[in-house]
């Protein structure tokens, strides 16, 4: 679990171009200025590519925080 979380954090740092980013399960777009709609899609696309999974549109728009993404991702890998 910790490994997965670490990988998500790395992806986020890469997509949001912020190497200092530290995330928790509760981290949401409200806390991160770079987490706009475009970067959200880029972030989701990066997760899909890295873990070879696919999110539905409904899932993509339902994620309220990092925890939601990780929980959903675990059901697919």
């Amino acid at each position, binding site marked *: 679990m910790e490994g997965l979380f670490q990988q998500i954090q790395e992806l986020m740092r890469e997509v949001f171009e912020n190497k200092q980013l530290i995330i928790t399960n509760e981290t949401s777009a409200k806390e991160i200025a770079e987490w706009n709609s*475009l970067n959200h899609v880029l972030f989701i696309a990066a997760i899909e590519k890295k873990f070879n999974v696919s999110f539905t549109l409904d899932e993509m728009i339902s994620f309220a925080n990092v925890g939601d993404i990780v929980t959903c991702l675990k059901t697919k890998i």
Partner: protein
Amino acid sequence: MIFREIKVGELVDFVNTVFYKNANIVPITPQRAISQANNPYAQPNDVALVLALNNKEEIIGFIGILPGKTMLTDERFFWNTCWWIDPEKGKIAAMPLFYSMLKITKSNLIFFDLTPHTASIVAKMGFMTNSITGTKVFLRFNLNQILPKKYAFLAILKPILKFFDSCLNTMFAKKSAKKELNYQVIKCLDASMEVFLSKFKPTMLTPFDNTFFTWVSNYSWLTTQPNEFETAIAKKYYFSYITQSFVVELLKITHQNELIGIFVVTCRDSEMKIPYCFFDDNATEKVLEAIFNYAYNKKITTITTFHPKIKEQLKLKKNTVLFTKQLVKHVGYPKQFETLGITNKLFQDGEGDAVFT
């Protein structure tokens, strides 16, 4: 937020539904629906539209996909036709709609005529983007159409502006075509034209043949005599639908009985575009002469082109045009298309859905 896909095979029924008739915004016109339903490159289960609806079932955004064909790959291929978001309610739908299009098309799509903002988004999504320059030349004054569009209050002065146009055109615009008419307007490609076109195949991005031209010429996306329903729909549709006049014509250009060029031209009101053209480099001057003949005969006010050879030739015709305006168009395509040779292909002005309007 709910997403709803409309397939190509469902389009004609969709524009007859109660939902469509009562919608606050419509994502497609009946004209476009019929045209896209007759797309020779589409399959009935292809997704044509993705709609984003809020919890009141109001359309807050939509994105359009047009199946196409490219000479680059045998894989299914698509164009992006539209992307609209309600400026107040639809911002949350923008990127999910865009992403849904990428997933549906497996990113096998080309964007043609992007805005600079959309081009930056497309670039961030991993596509190559490029800009193409074009030229719009003015052959006649047309202030009575141009000025009221920019300044609504001038609409009441249209008759006066029309009078000014008439005076200015009498004084400055070139009036007569050369007597030798070196073009023919024809209905479809004949055998000699197909032979002529074969040498342009290596640089064609998309195939140009009778199948394609028949679709384009029979199913434009504009209507010139709207009925009451269409007039009502036009008020709820963000993109172009109704115009005073619109024709698509295929021109066979010859010189001393030799075929030297094939042009598809569209004339919307008095503005002409050249969606497709094929000619040898050494015939550029002659084909342009024929195009100008056509334009004078039709009393065309402007000609727009992005074709590099025609643009260069137009620079030499400065004394026959009143004004020139430079244009820019942004295109986007998947990076892998570069390995397939897209940089060796000529983007014609009519690629994607551009020829339909």
